[in-house]
């Protein structure tokens, strides 16, 4: 006999179904139980005496009356007239064969559910040099990811998909960030690593710096098992767009004002940094000659911004002072625009189309550009703290694109100038399908693609979230090392983007509850179902105060 598994035997490898090196069935012994997601181990001995260990994960469990031929047998058995043996079997998908001798396990070999050290081996955690905790199994064992696949060493990016409202995508991305920043996972990189989170919906993320008063002991114990403190984020700054119609910048947020910095760009910054392109967000803008017009106008604005007092928020263009976005629109309505073309062969209709769109955009994002002296130094500075939350949820979709585009572009430019892959920057962006759709055009498309493809070498890791991965640019999803799904729509779950899920995994993805995710990572051949603890930071105002509340962490999900 090979050395027997250290955990108690729960069953035997079945011989009535094929046992193969990659999958096999286990007959569960009477009185024992095996459930989905249990990790199991079995060993077989080769003729030369070498022992081969198979680790695997249970993905199907079933019971049936053995030898039963008729549906009515169930009634007969219940009646007490038909004796029947119940066969309880579990299907095991092999995750690891050690050593790599791909023989089948032997029918009749003992199978155990693994614990502790063997559990870590089953999921290759023993081979990961640097890990970060990404959740717990349903039985409470911590699950780790290989940090080298998140920090750019061997890979980067996470792609999180799931139905809005129940998939808890942003919560999970935030949890991973918390785990990265509040454990020693990052090591020396921790000091300078940054995260940029775009708050797309609600104001959940505006309380990251406050401890959650509704945390119970059970959740605290979960954090402890994960090796994490149970508290708020330690270093956070919040930025919200400035309120419309106010010269003095004020954060446009509902639940929290205190500690939230308003952001606004001065006209000079807008011109100098060539941000005009991010104003044009419609698919049609990419057509015809409008990009040429944009580029010419940007040139003219940049030239103007280099003149005059650099500390002045406004600029003077062709002798006209421009102190607000509407001033700029007015200016470009005039022949000034024709002059800026500098003889380029642009049709009058194109200029009119440009003006029309500029007018439209001005209404939606004009308030984010101001020539008022108070607007100075109100841009988003994400270098001063670990985590920067940029609220864009109150903005119109095109203004959101403007903010995200400007920030990401600036960040990439800065990283490029710095060179090298450190410091690390993690970017959390929900609704990626809007910013980098598979079909159609977006001004952010190229920036996001750039992050996906080159971010690894520049130390930028994108945690993209979307309802449907099938609607996001293929190369962005494809580049993600960590693939995560929360609750999926049944039709969506069938798409090829979720090829990392098994047939059973796809069905389970449609049943996931808030707080449970299925995570695939490069080194583990099987996507793992895990749950992550209820946030130890507040996610709304009433969690900040010390009011007592029910223990159900996901009650607000209304399930």
């Amino acid at each position: 006999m090979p050395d027997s598994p250290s955990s108690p035997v729960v069953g035997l490898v079945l011989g009535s179904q094929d046992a193969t090196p990659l999958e096999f069935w286990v007959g569960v012994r009477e009185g024992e139980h095996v459930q989905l997601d249990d990790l199991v181990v079995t060993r077989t001995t080769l003729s030369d005496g070498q022992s081969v260990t198979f680790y695997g994960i249970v993905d199907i469990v079933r019971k049936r009356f053995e030898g039963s031929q008729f549906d009515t047998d169930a009634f007969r058995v219940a009646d007490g007239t038909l004796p029947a043996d119940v066969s309880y079997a579990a299907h095991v998908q092999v995750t690891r064969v050690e050593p790599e001798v791909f023989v089948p396990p032997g029918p009749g070999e003992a199978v155990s559910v693994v614990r502790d050290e063997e559990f870590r081996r089953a999921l290759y955690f023993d081979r990961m040099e640097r890990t970060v905790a990404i959740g717990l199994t349903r039985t409470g064992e911590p699950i780790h990811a290989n940090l080298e696949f998140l920090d750019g060493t061997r890979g980067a990016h996470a792609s999180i998909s799931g139905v809005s409202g129940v998939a808890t995508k942003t919560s999970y991305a935030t949890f991973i960030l918390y785990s990265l920043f509040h454990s020693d996972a990052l090591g020396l990189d921790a000091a300078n690593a940054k995260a940029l989170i775009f708050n797309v919906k609600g104001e959940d993320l505006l309380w990251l710096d406050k401890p959650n008063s509704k945390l119970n002991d059970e959740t605290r114990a979960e954090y402890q098992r994960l090796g994490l403190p149970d508290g708020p984020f330690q270093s956070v700054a919040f930025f919200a767009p400035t309120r419309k119609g106010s010269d003095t910048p004020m954060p446009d947020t509902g639940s929290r004002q205190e500690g939230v910095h308003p952001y606004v760009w001065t006209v000079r910054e807008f011109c100098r940094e060539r941000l005009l392109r991010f104003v044009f967000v419609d698919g049609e803008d990419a057509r015809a000659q409008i990009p040429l017009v944009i580029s010419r106008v940007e040139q003219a604005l940049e030239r103007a911004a280099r003149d005059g007092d650099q500390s002045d928020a406004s600029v003077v263009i062709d002798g006209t002072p421009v102190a607000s976005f509407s001033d700029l629109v007015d200016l470009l309505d005039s022949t000034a625009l024709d002059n800026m073309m500098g003889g380029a062969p642009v049709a009058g209709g194109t200029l009119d189309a440009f003006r029309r769109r500029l007018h439209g955009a001005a209404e939606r994002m004009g308030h984010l550009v101001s020539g008022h002296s108070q607007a100075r130094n109100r841009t988003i500075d994400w270098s001063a703290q670990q985590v920067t939350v940029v609220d864009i949820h109150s903005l119109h979709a095109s203004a959101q694109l403007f903010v995200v585009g400007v920030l990401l572009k600036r960040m990439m430019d800065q990283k490029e100038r710095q060179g090298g892959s450190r410091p690390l920057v993690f970017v959390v962006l929900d609704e990626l399908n809007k910013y980098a759709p598979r079909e159609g055009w977006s001004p952010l498309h190229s920036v996001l693609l750039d992050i996906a493809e080159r971010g690894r070498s520049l130390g930028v890791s994108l945690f993209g979230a979307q309802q449907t991965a099938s609607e996001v640019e293929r190369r962005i999803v494809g580049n993600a090392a960590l693939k995560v799904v929360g609750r999926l729509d049944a039709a969506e779950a069938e798409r090829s983007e979720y090829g990392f899920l098994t047939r059973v995994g796809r069905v389970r993805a449609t049943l996931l509850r808030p707080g449970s995710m299925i995570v695939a990572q490069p080194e583990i051949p099987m996507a793992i179902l895990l749950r992550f603890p209820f946030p130890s930071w507040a996610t709304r105002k009433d969690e900040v105060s010390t009011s007592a509340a029910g223990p159900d962490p996901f009650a607000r999900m209304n399930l």
Partner: protein
Amino acid sequence: MTQAPAPPRSSFGGFDVRIDPWAVEYGAETPTEFQSDAEDASIVDVSVEVEGAAWAPIRPVVVASNQAVSFVDGVRRMEARLVVTREGRVIHGALGSFGVGVVECRDGRAVFGQERRGRLTVFGSGEVPPSPLELAPALVYAPHSVPEEDADAPLKGIHNEMRAVERQLAREHASPGRVVVADGPLAPGETTAGHVVGCVKRLFKLYVPAEQLGVLRALPMAARTPLFLIAGNDRFSRYSWFVRLGPRLSIESDFTGLVRLEVSGTVGKEEAVSLADLMTTLLPRFVPSRTRDPRAPQNLVPIGALEQHLRRGLGDARLIHRRLATRLAQESVNA
């Protein structure tokens, strides 16, 4: 494939053993019945419960149905017919397996109980195989001998061994609180076992004289005939009655769907009547549908399931046959 260990020079001593290829019964788990009914010359008294002239169907009042009842049955299988030669003399032999088990029905649950298995190498004509035949570690055929010389005698020997184990198991299980329904007629040895009811599924002999046959023919569902006493000459006396378990189709004989039950005469008339009433109310619950079992309604559900269960326990017939063939081939090479 694991090979059987190298055999000794011969497993059969001085006997030359060969397989008789023509006589192998494929799927012969329920072959020829060896019922002794047909030869039984006995005296029948139909007036023990009611006068013979007053015979009429009896429908007992349904009693509490949580009565514990066990069903004992066995299956047998001939793995191979053997032709054995010794010093020019030809002897018939057989290699066979049987399994005997019990299904215990009580408290609304039916469960498989004890199970016994036997494997025999049988030689006829009084010859005894010299040693057990081990085809695999868990596949050992014990030596057994029958005195008769005819070709069916070894099979009959296996059958009788199975019946003996059945009787033993039934005796062990019977108790005042639990009735055991055994397959087939009772044997003389069962006089002591008061609560063993023999259940005869195939009616080779009706016992009942012609005057009472009308009652049998017209017996309604879940009703029984009055008791009659069978006083055997070489056997023992027992109370018997018929119960109709299932309806009869127009194409079928009047006696379809009937079973004959019997208990030892030693239980006394009172006890026999109450057992008869109990069985008449109890057994219809266990009747299978015709789609489930072609032997419906007589082959009761627990019996059918038990047979299937026991047959599984006998192992794969083809595999055993091949092991035997391999063994005999090795021996003929070694010889």
